[in-house]
C-alpha cells in the first residue's frame, strides 16, 4: 500500500461521490419542479 494505491482509492471514492451528488440533485429537481416546466425550453428562442 503506497501513495499510488491511496490515490487510486481516492479517485474511485471521489468519482462515486460526484456521481451520487449529480443523481441526488437530479432527483431532487425532478421532485421540486413540474415536469412540464423542466421540458419547456424551445429551440432557437432569442
Amino acid at each position, binding site marked *: 500500500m*503506497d501513495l499510488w494505491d491511496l490515490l487510486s482509492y481516492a479517485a474511485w471514492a471521489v468519482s462515486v461521490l*460526484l456521481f451520487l451528488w449529480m443523481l441526488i440533485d437530479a432527483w431532487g*429537481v425532478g421532485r421540486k*419542479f413540474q415536469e412540464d416546466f423542466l421540458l419547456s425550453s424551445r429551440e432557437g428562442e432569442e
Partner: protein
Amino acid sequence: MSEATTAAAGGSSGQPTRIALLKVLGPVHVWALGVGIVLVGEFMGWNFSVGKGGAYGSLIACWVVGLLYTCVAMIDSEVTSTVAAAGGQYTQAKHIVGPLMAFNVGLYLVMAYTMLEAGDALVVGDLMKAVAGEFGHADLDPRPFVVLSIAILAWLNYRGVFMTLTVNFVITAAAFLAIVILFFGVAPWEPGKVLLHKELLIDLPYGWIGVIAAMQFAMWYYLGIEGTCQAAEEVRSAGRSIPLGTMSGMITLLIAASLTWYVAAGLMPWEYLGQAITPLYDAAKLTGNGTLQVILFVGTIFSAIASANGCINDASRAWFSMGRDRYLPTWFGAVHPRYRTPYRAILFLIPIAVVFAFQAPLDQVISFSILSGLLGYTFMSLNMMKFRKQWPLGSIKRGYVHPFHPLPAIVLLVLCVATYFATFLGYGATLVAVMAFYILASAWFVFHRYKFVRRGDQFTMPWPRPKGY
C-alpha cells in the same frame, strides 16, 4: 431574449412559465470549445497517419485535410450564424433536409464526441500509469483515473456552461503554449543539433497511395472544430461570435499541426512515430530536457481534459436537442432550473463514456469517432447546396455569407470521398460496421421512433416556405 430566459428560476413559488439554456458565452468560449476538443489530436492520434503514409505523406495529408476543414469552417459559419440553436448541425439538418437526416446527424455528433471523450480519458489513465511507473510503482490500474476525469468533467458540465468553458479556455491555452515551448525548446534555428530532419526523413514508404491512406488519421489534427456551433443557443451574439471563434480556432490548429509535425518528424524514425501513443511527450523525452518533459506531460493531460470537457458539452447538447424534438425519449429534453444545463443528457452519457473507455480498443474507438465526423461532413456539403437552393441569398437574414459558393461545398464532397477511400485502405471492416450501425439506427427511427415526432414543430425558424416544397 425573452422574459423567460432572463427571469431567475428560483423556488417553486412564482415560477416563470418557460426555461431555457443561458446565453452567456462570447467568442473566447467558442474558440475554447472548438480548439479545446481538437488540440489533444496534436498530442496523440495524428501520428497514426505517419504509420499509414510516412512522415512526408502525413504532412501532405495534413494540408489537404486542412483544406477540407477550411471548407467545413466556412460552410458551418454561414449555416450556424443563420440557424442558431443548440444541436448545431442537427438543427440545420432538421430545417434543411428533414427529420431522418437530422436524427442521423444527431447520432453522428453524439457518437463522435462520446467516443472521443472515452479516448481522452484513456490517455489520462495511460499517462498516470506511465508516471507511476517512472516513480517505481509498476502496473498501476489506470481505470480509477479514467473514471475520475469523466466524473469531474461531467460534474463541471452539470454545474453550468460558463464555468465549464472558462476552465476550458485556460487549459486549452496552456496546452497550446506547451506545443510552442517545445518548438522553441528543440532549437529549430540550429538544424542537426536536436532536430535531425535530414537524417530521419525518407521518401514516401508506400508511394502516393500511402498519402491518401494517411488522410484518415490526418483528420485527427482538426476533428471536432465544427463542434463550435453546438454552443449556438448559449452564445450572446451567435451571428458574430461563432464565425469569429471558429475561424480563429482553425488558424490556431493549422499552426499547432505544422509545429507538431516539424518537431516530431525531426526527432523520431517514422516507424516509431507511426505507432506511438503519446508522440509529443516522447519528443520531449528525446530532447533529454527534464523541464520540457514535465511541460509536455502537463500539456498532454490538459489537452486530453479540455477535449473530454468539450465533448461532454457537445454530445449532451445534441442528445438534449433530440430529446426535446422527441427523436429520443422526451425525458432527455429537460433543462436544470438552477444551472440551466441539459442535465439529464449529461447524466445519461456518463456511464456510456465509461463503458466505451473500458471495453473497446482505442484505435477502434478513434475510427468510429472519425467516421462519424466524416459522415457529418458529407452531410454538410450536401446540406449547403440545398440551403442555398431552398433559401437563395436575400430571402432570409444570414449572419455571415461565405464566398465562392458552391466551390467549398464541392471541394468538401470530393475530399470526403477521398477520405472514405483512405479509411477503406486498412480499416475497411470498421467502415462497414459503422455504416451498418447508422443504417440499423435509421431503420429503427423510420419504423418505430418517428411516430412520436410532432411534424409541424420540427420547423422553428421564422423563415418563409422553402423553395420547391
